[in-house]
Every structure is written in C-alpha cells, then in structure tokens.
C-alpha cells in the first residue's frame, strides 16, 4: 500500500532514506580496533633454520622455556626471567609477571591460565627457593596467586598440573591439580631426595622423576611414581659424577633422558660437557645409549611429542658440528635432521624447546653468532631477529614423512 503524499515530501523522504542507509552503513558495531602493523613474526622467514621457519618473537631479551597454549594460538616464554606470551601469528607481547620476577618454568592449565614456577626475588644462592603461582590472562594487575611453597619441579598433566614440593634436599612429595588450579591430591608418601624434574606418562597415570639423592651433588636417579597407588620406586641410578640434565621423557617405547659427566676432563678439546641420550625400560635397569642416535652425538635437550611417538632433540652430530634440531623415532630407531643450520646458535637449555599441541612443529630459541665488533642495523631494536635470542617455529613432518 502506497501512502498519498505530496512531491516535496516524497523527495524529502527519499533523501532521508538514503541518509539513513548511509549512516547505518558507516556506523561500527564494535568499538574502534586499530590495525596492528606487521611484525617479523607475522611472516615466514628463513633465518638459517630452514624453509617454513617462522619467527615467533623479535627484539632484545634472553628468552627461555617456550610453552604453547592448549589451543596452540599463543606461546608463553620467559624474557630475562619474567614471563610473557603472545599470539603465534602476530601481535604484541603480554606480560604476566613483574620484571623483578625470575621464572624457572611455565605450564598452561587452560587457554587463559598459566602456572608459573619461580621467585620474586633471587636469593643469590645457588638455587632460588621457588614457589608455584597461578596467573590469569586479562587481570589488570600483575599480581600472582601462590599455590604452593618450596616447589622444585612442575609438569603438565592432561587435566591440570603435577608438581613436586620439598623443603630441603632430603625428601620431596608430589601434588596434583586436576580440573582447576587448587591442589586436589597431595601424596603422603615421600620421595627420598630432591625432585629436580618430572613428566607424566602418556596415559597420565604415572610420573617419571629425575631425583637428586640426599647428600649428593648430582641429579643421578630416575624414579617412577604411580599416581593411582601413590607409590614410587627407583628404576635406575647413574654411577660416578654422571648427572641427569633436564626433564626425563616418557615415550611409547621407553623412558629417555639426557645425561653425562658433569665435569669434563681438562684434557678434553671441548669446553662443555658431552651429554648423551639414554633409554631405560619402564621396569627399570641399566640405561643404554639411545639406539639410532649415533655414538658421537652430543645431546642438549629432548621433548616427547604430544602423541608419545617421537622425541625432538637439540644437539650436535659430533662435538665439532653445529647444533641442530633432530627428531628421533624410538620405534624405528632413526634420527632425522629437521634443521641443517650452520650459522645460528640454537639455545641448548634443557627447557628451550616445545612441541606445538598438534605435534606439527617445534619451537626453539636461536640467534646469529654475536659479533665482537659493533653491529649497525637499519631497523629498530624491537624488530631485530638474529641479533638476539628469539623464538622460531620449525615445521616437523610426521613419522610417515621422515627423511
């Protein structure tokens, strides 16, 4: 039905309609969002770590302990001790702790909650007495909520977190958080010694622990702790001054760990200890060098893939070769080079690598070899990559794609 109106009113109505459509079209449903300028992390780069490598951070700062969020769209890491995270595609850093906080490890328990092991003030002693804290994204302040004191090691669990508590070098206890962040099981049976590192089996029913026995200086024992029965047992012990480095890994085909002589002989040509990867069956026994790795291989750190079928390994084929990322297939006993880097220094800390949740890539930390001369660059420091330790995502093919 058409209304009978005069020509002038009709024209005014048409103009008003056009204006209304125009204004409605130009208005914004959301509040204003600025377009982020691209950062190096947004694009694929080849910093010497192979094709497909992507920078996940840029700029100065000593970065460590990468940890992917459960959804895989963010990555947390430490910078000069404090904790940050950022989107894996592009975007700004988000700080989780104050800059005087020294974090040792971080574990995501949900896409917006991080559990942080660390201390606000370093004591200056050999070991910082660390506590376990909870931090949530989106909270205005950088205040942390303390979950436990005297915590020596943490590890992710499918439904939460497992951690070791111990007030001294003589005994430790395990605690579990599941379905939230509060401790919902504190195991009464203690473990003799100090738990230095731990990780869970694929089923989440047992934990493997690297333990420093009471009175010893080295982490030399491997224990298994049954989380259902609340009982642990020693499965192997290293001789002499050998020490276990980093976190033992529980694969579908045995337990793997990195170990070696703590003090390398002064007659040796190399200045750093030569560590190897060892395998020990779950039932226990004498550890054997990991099959397929090669007797000259110098290992730095290992991480089991999310499916438990592969081990990411950072190390060198021999003491004189460059550090690279490898993948070990424990079943096939085959070591595959993922990077063939000659120029970059890949960081070799025990926690300086992490699998993405889908098991398709590994985050490592690397930098170019620092110059002894002043270096001049035409970019702001915050955009520089190879001049500082930065995170890189390196694609890893599946077992069927092994070279």
């Amino acid at each position: 039905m058409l209304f009978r109106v005069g020509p002038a009113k009709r024209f005014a109505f048409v103009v008003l309609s056009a204006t209304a459509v125009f204004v409605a079209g130009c208005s914004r449903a959301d509040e204003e969002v600025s377009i982020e300028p691209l950062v190096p992390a947004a694009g694929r780069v080849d910093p010497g770590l192979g094709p497909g490598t992507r920078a996940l951070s840029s700029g100065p700062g000593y970065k460590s302990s990468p940890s992917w969020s459960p959804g895989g769209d963010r990555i947390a890491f430490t910078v000069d001790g404090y904790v940050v995270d950022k989107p894996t595609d592009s975007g700004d850093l988000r700080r989780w702790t104050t800059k005087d906080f020294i974090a040792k490890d971080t574990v995501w328990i949900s896409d917006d909650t991080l559990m942080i092991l660390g201390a606000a003030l370093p004591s200056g002693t050999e070991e910082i007495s660390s506590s376990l804290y909870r931090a949530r994204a989106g909270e205005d302040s950088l205040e942390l909520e303390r979950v436990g004191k005297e915590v020596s090691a943490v590890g992710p669990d499918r439904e939460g977190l497992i951690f070791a508590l111990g007030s001294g070098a003589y005994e430790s206890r395990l605690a579990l958080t599941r379905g939230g962040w509060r401790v919902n099981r504190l195991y009464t049976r203690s473990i003799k010694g100090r738990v230095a590192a731990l990780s869970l089996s694929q089923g989440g029913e047992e934990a493997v622990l690297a333990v420093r026995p009471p009175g010893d200086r080295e982490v030399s024992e491997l224990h298994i702790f049954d989380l259902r029965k609340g009982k642990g047992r020693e499965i192997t012990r290293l001789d002499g001054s050998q020490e276990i480095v980093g976190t033992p890994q529980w694969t579908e085909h045995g337990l793997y760990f990195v170990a070696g002589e703590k003090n390398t002989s002064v007659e040796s040509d190399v200045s750093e200890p030569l560590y190897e990867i060892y395998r020990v069956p779950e039932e226990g026994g004498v550890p054997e060098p990991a099959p397929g790795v090669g007797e000259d291989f110098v290992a730095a750190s290992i991480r089991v893939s999310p499916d438990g079928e592969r081990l990411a390994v950072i190390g060198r084929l021999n003491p004189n070769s460059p550090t690279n990322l490898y993948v070990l297939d424990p079943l096939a006993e085959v070591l595959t080079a993922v990077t063939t880097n000659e120029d970059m220094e890949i960081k070799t800390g025990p926690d300086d690598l992490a699998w993405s949740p889908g098991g398709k890539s590994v985050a490592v930390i690397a930098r170019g070899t620092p110059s002894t001369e002043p270096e001049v660059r035409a970019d702001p420091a915050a955009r520089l990559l190879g001049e500082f330790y930065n995170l890189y995502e390196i694609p890893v093919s599946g077992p069927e794609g092994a070279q």
Partner: protein
Amino acid sequence: MKDIAFWLSGATLAFLVTAGAFLLLANLATAPSEESLNPNQAKGGSGQAVDVILDKEQLASLEPRPDQSLDLVVENEGGEQLSDVNVALRVFSENTALSDSRYYRQTVEKIPAGEAASMRFEFDLLARERPVATPTANPEPSREILEIRTTTPEGTSTVRTVILPP
C-alpha cells in the same frame, strides 16, 4: 503507476548514492593502512629520504663509562631543503628487565638538499653487573644498544640500531 515508478527511481538513486559513498570511504580508509603494514620499513613517512652515517671506529672505541661521545652525520638525500630534523638517541641494555633507557635529543634547523649536518651526542654508557645466573635469566654479560632515530616534520624517520659487544 506513476507512484510506483517514482518509488523505484527513488530507491535506485538512494542505492547509487550509498554505494558511491561507501566506495569513496573505502578508498580513503585503506590508503594509510597499506603504508603502515611494511615490516621492514626503516624509513617511515612519505617525505624525502634521510640517511644517518656513523663512524664505526668511534663506535668500536666506546667504553662502559660516563661521558662517551657519538658523532653522526645526517644526510639529506632528497631534492629539497629539510628543516627542524629531530635526532633522538636512546641508550639501553639488551637485558629487558632493566628499565633504565636514557634518551638524548637534538634538532637540526636546516639541511640543504644533497647536503649533510654533523652532530655530537654526549651520553653515559653504564657498566652492568653480571646478572644472577638462573636457567631463564641471561648468564652472559648484556650488550648495550644505541638506537638513533631521525624524524622530519613531514614524518620521515630513519633508524639505526647499534649493538655494542660486551
């Protein structure tokens, strides 16, 4: 019938006016964003180019002490005279946990086309204590960083970052 024709033509006119307005706005909105999305843009803005020339030997002679000097040359590579070029020096540590950046600023009043202006910055280069060695804090001595940024009134900026060995 006449009314129907009138309403149809009115609706068509309204559609065309609205579509035209959106096209105009879309073109206006995208121009500056495309410019800001260049990741390797060392020289920002749309004005003429400025180069910053540093003396490598002098950089190598800098020591972690107060009262250090940095001579630099700002070169106008364009075809027009530049006025009021701001030159800022930021001195800071590679260790990002140390929040003690120092800022120094000078302005060059005029740089004729194709010519250069020299200037000197006097600044302090601090000696850093070796940080506490923890698995996540840097066990190495931190390097000092000098970031020099020139900005013209037109918005052209040029950056040079100098990383000094420890």
